[in-house]
């Protein structure tokens, strides 16, 4: 099982940290995905996102990364998610997957971010430019 990093933090995230966590001379490919705060949601201008986490979020995140690692035995995986108030362009999540070949690295990174979004108890509340606020995914 090669889960190198699975954390939730309030401080800014670093791609280099994730790259460093999964790098290894035996790997030929590293796929990284960054989720960043967009300035727009369905046509409405967004100014910031406030991320919050359920107390179990870190444990769930670790289990998710372990689950993906089990499905990609040749890959080394890392995932770090940020909570708190984030501005436009800030990085909310970084996942990384390294493997001998690019196919496995890219597939593992995709599975990892998809599963994190589906299973880790995190939420985000958007503040629009007119000051209104809305929880993403809570109502529609």
């Amino acid at each position, binding site marked *: 099982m090669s889960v190198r990093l699975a954390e939730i933090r309030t401080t800014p995230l670093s791609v280099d940290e994730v790259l460093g966590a999964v790098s290894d001379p035996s790997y030929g490919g590293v796929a990284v995905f960054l989720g960043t705060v967009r300035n727009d949601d369905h046509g409405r201008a967004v100014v910031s996102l406030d991320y919050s986490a359920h107390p179990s979020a870190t444990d769930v995140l670790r289990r998710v990364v372990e689950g993906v690692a089990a499905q990609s035995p040749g890959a080394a995986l890392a995932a770090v*998610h940020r909570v708190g108030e984030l501005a436009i362009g800030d990085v909310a999540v970084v996942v990384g997957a390294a493997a001998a070949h690019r196919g496995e690295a890219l597939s593992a990174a995709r599975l990892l971010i998809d599963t994190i979004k589906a299973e880790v108890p995190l939420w*985000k509340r958007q503040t629009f430019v007119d000051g209104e606020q809305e929880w993403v995914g*809570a*109502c529609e």
Partner: protein
Amino acid sequence: MARGLIRYWAAARDAAGVVEEPYDAATLADALDFARATHDTAFTTVLARCSFLVDDAPVGGRDHSTVELSDGNTIEVLPPFAGG
């Protein structure tokens, strides 16, 4: 009848206007019926999309009326996740 706390997160917390409140119910279904009766329709709309934990254990797809509560169980109300 079991007594315990029902705790709300994110959008459910905002809709309920409280972080948590007591319940007095035999099953999860009863506890949620009581909560719906106590709060407004916006709360009911959010609740319809939530998932639930009872003492940290996910309820998942189980029928809420079959989820029996014991004294001191904490129910948690989790709106749809929106990480990433």
